């Protein structure tokens, strides 16, 4: 009886820890981005629940720079954080070293979807890899 009472007392506090979002968008999108068939290596299932990749999209501008967008969703019902880093490769598959290369922190509310967008540093960048890290 005592345990049940204590559990019921804790419920409101627990509910405050969970905050997820609602969203709305056109049922029939007027434009569709070019999706990329991606290869995923998941070694941390918990991180995959926080930063779950819905899709990878690319486009190329008039001057040949690649634009990449990752649609990422937090599958949990509470806010969660992670960091990510883009790496670029040229047409020979060699990594392009950048002074601006860094891990970028992101915080998503529960069930929130966001777009991680970046531009290739040079028209010679033809390929990329995104690495996700759990938040410290």
């Amino acid at each position: 009886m005592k345990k049940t009472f204590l559990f019921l007392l804790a419920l409101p506090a627990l509910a405050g820890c969970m905050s997820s979002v609602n969203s709305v968008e056109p049922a029939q999108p007027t434009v569709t981005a070019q999706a990329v068939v991606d290869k995923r290596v998941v070694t941390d299932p918990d991180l995959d629940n926080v930063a779950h990749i819905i899709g990878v999209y690319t486009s190329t501008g008039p001057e040949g720079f690649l634009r990449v967008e990752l649609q990422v969703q937090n599958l949990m019902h509470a806010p969660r954080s992670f960091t990510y880093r883009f790496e670029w490769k040229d047409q020979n598959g060699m990594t392009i070293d950048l002074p601006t290369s860094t891990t970028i922190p992101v915080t998503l509310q529960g069930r929130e979807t966001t777009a991680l967008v970046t531009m290739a540093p040079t028209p010679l960048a033809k390929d990329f890899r995104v690495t996700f890290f759990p938040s410290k």
Partner: protein
Amino acid sequence: MRKLVLTFLPAVCAALLAGCGTDAHYVNASGNQLVTTVEQVNIQDFANAADAMTASLIDREINTGDLRSGVPGDKALLAISLIKNETGEQFDTDLLVKKIRVALLQTGKIYATTTGGFGGPEDPVAAANQTTARRPDYTLSGKIIETRAQSGDLRQSAFVFQLSLTSAGNGVAVWEDEKTIVKQGTRPAVGF
């Protein structure tokens, strides 16, 4: 027995405390193991802001083919103008600007001058030996602003990086962007 314990206790404590310390070691400058402080702009904040600004400049000005050079067939020339530090911390704004300049040079679409810019030539030897002078096509200027807030023990610092790319010929800003980095932390119960 008690005397024996009291005799060796300080030595044992000293040995344990020495073992608790962390030896100096290298960390990846672009990794996620860097120290994050609330009241300072950390090295990863400069990289984060530079990355966002460069991506924006490439997306809206370079990739669209809108960058124009005063010399037909040649790349556009960029000069660095005034970048104001309006935070409470003293740092060299090159921690931001140099990253952006290197990244822009890597695009292959733009040159940067080291003999003309705010504060005089960055390379005085090159300036002294310069035989031809080319006026820059664009200048990069900006400001870094800090705002602080506190709620109880929770402290928050927001660093706003603002940059503008101006067409030097007519003084028109052809690109502008702003990146805000917000950090929160709690003040420790003991200490500063």
